[in-house]
């Protein structure tokens, strides 16, 4: 997938040593999954690793093209499943999420931040101006001699007025609540999808905290 912005180069467009034919063929046969972390703490990715040996079962069937662990933002080729953690808090998040929507068949909101905004959404009750003042101007931990100013540069993503759940920006297909969800819950949903079953998260493993 080529990035939309002509000045942007995706990591998969950079020169790299080609994979051997057998590995490449084996990967291409699998279900392609892309993962991304937006505005969150990456705890959901740690929970993903909490699947333990189930991760190995899952990896027999899926190939993870891009993950939060590598923090590579663009998807190299069309994916069946997109795993999104974190809410939308700046324009870079919006761009990345829209790129995921265009290039994934199914998108899953994973964790409280993606589902409703989560801990970052606690700033929704405070005007943005006050957030900036608290973070950059009246903060007790700044270097005393450093000039106190709110950083601004064209390369710094523009903060949105409030934190939005992913489904208020693009259509999301499934939701796994929890802060973070248990590895068991993430496995249940992914396993259902990979095996073509209807997604069902039982009450016993659903939680919001």
């Amino acid at each position, binding site marked *: 997938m080529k990035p939309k912005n002509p000045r942007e180069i995706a990591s998969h467009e950079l020169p790299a040593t080609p994979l051997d034919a057998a590995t490449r063929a084996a990967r291409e046969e699998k279900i392609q999954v892309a993962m991304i972390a937006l505005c969150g703490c990456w705890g959901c990715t740690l929970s993903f690793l909490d699947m333990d040996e189930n991760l190995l079962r899952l990896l027999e069937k899926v190939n993870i093209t891009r993950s939060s662990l590598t923090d590579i933002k663009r998807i190299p080729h069309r994916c069946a499943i997109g795993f999104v953690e974190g809410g939308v808090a700046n324009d870079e998040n919006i761009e990345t999420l829209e790129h995921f929507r265009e290039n994934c068949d199914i998108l899953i*909101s994973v964790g409280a931040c993606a589902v409703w905004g989560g801990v970052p959404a606690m700033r929704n*009750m405070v005007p943005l101006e006050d957030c900036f003042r608290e973070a950059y101007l009246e903060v007790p931990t700044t270097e005393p001699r450093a000039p106190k100013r709110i950083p601004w540069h064209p390369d710094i993503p523009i903060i949105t007025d409030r934190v939005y759940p992913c489904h208020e920006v693009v259509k999301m297909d499934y939701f796994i609540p929890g802060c973070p969800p248990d590895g068991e819950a993430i496995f249940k949903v992914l396993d259902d999808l990979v095996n073509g079953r209807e997604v069902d998260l039982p009450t016993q493993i659903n939680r919001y905290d």
Partner: protein
Amino acid sequence: MSVNITIDGLAVRADAGDTLVDVAADNGVYIPTLCYQRGRPCLGTCRVCSVRVNGNVMAACTVPVADGMEVEVNDPADMRKALVELLFAEGNHNCPSCEKSGRCELQVVGYEVGMMVSRFPYRFPLRDRETRPKKIWLENDRCIFCQRCVEFVRDRETGRRIFSIDHRGSRSRIVMDVALADRMSDQQVREAAELCPVGCILQKGLGYNDPIGRRRFEVRRLRQRVLEGEGQ
């Protein structure tokens, strides 16, 4: 006088005038409830126990059973779910940062109705907290207006109400009579905090006391408590 009714096609015998939601629980049918507490007068504020009675949607905690009644519990399941989702969208229900998590009735009812996300836009309302009383405070943005505290928490001497609802519509908020609140005993404060189904009424100096995995509804699920009784 005993009457015959059907609940989802199951023939049930009950005493005329018994509350439908209790009759269902006694016969192993769980109807999610939020404002209702067995043994206390019905409030009928949350409507989460809505079921179809003879074709009409009614809150099961408000319905006395009558002969020949036909009740469908499963049919308006999505409506009940929508009601719970509305409550989550209306206030700030940030479970990861809430003292009541694991003991919160709204949270467990969310699990019981299978809520993953609210279909309604989250409002993130700004409501001032009430922190003046010595032993108790109100996290107003968590209130779901069930009115349990309004009805059941009274000054022990005068019988006057300590809590009430101020304003109307989207501006409504729960308020507390600070002078009366300061006369509450520790025991009464604890009871009021436990009475609150969410983390709105909180006892000062208390929170996160039970470790995760040993909190009230993790030890025994809400459905079990309703169907098998609280005491077991």
